[in-house]
């Protein structure tokens, strides 16, 4: 429901996975295959000298170090900032506005998501079938979508839960005069096992 960039999640992990595999395979190859080890021995010093030579061409005044290290530091910092923003972008996408009517000469009507939250949650909270319920609004393809998540007691029929919530939604539609796309998520979860069970026998 939220706007977590899942393709990016997978791309990042896939790239890191492939890199780790490649580096690992290279290390094993250097350690075990004599031909590759010989090749590495003959080319590595040249690359090593090129890097140290490059660092020496950028002296940092006369401190004995190099601008090159500062450049590398800057790249590292940039990389860390990118990764941090990537982490904090996960799981967002809640929407505070449920409905915004087109402006009329008399003004604009805006309905907050809290209206749906309270109207629907009020009905659901009184039901004995549920341990917990949560109503939230997300933006999907630029349209607000209601998400109603409920945690059920053990043994409650999802069919009955579905029709109960759908009836609540239909009542809310009548109140609102609109039909907002909705998702009902029914879960059992750990808490339902810890609380009273409904006996039927």
């Amino acid at each position: 429901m939220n706007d977590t960039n899942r393709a990016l999640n997978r791309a990042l992990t896939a790239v890191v996975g492939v890199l780790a595999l490649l580096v690992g395979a290279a290390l094993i190859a250097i350690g075990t295959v004599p031909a590759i080890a010989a090749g590495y021995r003959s080319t590595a010093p040249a690359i090593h000298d090129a890097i140290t030579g490059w660092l020496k061409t950028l002296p940092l005044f006369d401190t004995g170090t190099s601008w090159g290290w500062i450049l590398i530091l800057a790249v590292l910092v940039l990389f860390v900032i990118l990764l941090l923003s990537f982490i904090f972008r996960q799981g967002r996408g809640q929407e505070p506005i449920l409905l915004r009517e087109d402006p009329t000469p008399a003004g604009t009507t805006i309905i907050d998501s809290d209206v749906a939250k309270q109207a629907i949650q009020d009905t659901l909270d009184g039901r004995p079938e549920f341990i917990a319920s949560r109503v939230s609004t997300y933006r999907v393809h630029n349209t607000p979508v209601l998400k109603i998540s409920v945690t059920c007691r053990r043994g409650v029929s999802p069919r009955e839960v579905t029709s109960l919530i759908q009836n609540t939604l239909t009542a809310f539609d009548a109140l609102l005069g609109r039909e907002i796309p909705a998702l009902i998520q029914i879960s059992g979860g750990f808490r339902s096992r810890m609380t009273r069970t409904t006996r039927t026998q």
Partner: protein
Amino acid sequence: MSTADIYHRILRRELHSPRSVLAITVSVVLILLCVYLGAEIVLAMLGYRALLATPQDMLTALGTLGSAPVTMPIIVGIVLMILGIMVLIPALTPGRRARHQLAGTRAAVVVDDEVIASALARHAAHAGNAHPDNTVVSISAHRAIVRVTPTSGILVREEAVSDAVQEQLAAFEPTPSLRSTILVASAGKVGG
């Protein structure tokens, strides 16, 4: 965007894992690596003692990798390959969650397999005259397996259990659909 597109998207997203935990873990590891490298560079520039090795030493070690003792690179390589596979597999597999979509008229409905299982267990136990605690249901993507252990002395009618389970599954209309298997234990359990 049409409503159908919206429902398609939210259902796809609810039925599959976002892989957020994995992505965040990988990012944190990368950040720690960067912080370590940065710390070593700063320490070396200020002329302090290195934590493990100075950046210069690291470069030199990389340059002489082919001639140094080979056990360490091989061990590191094996560890890296294992980590790479562990990260790559979840990145490429669909990551289906243990959930099913149910038929809904007003909204899209997604149910944890656990809820379906406990509802089936309740109805199966009731139909079979078994105790609910002795009825175990496990649900995978396409199968619902109902295991009933009878209470000693009370006969469990397999057809009744099967009918009850079928009836429930028909009412749920889960997607992907579930085929049920009923297993009645040959030995009963006393009391319960």
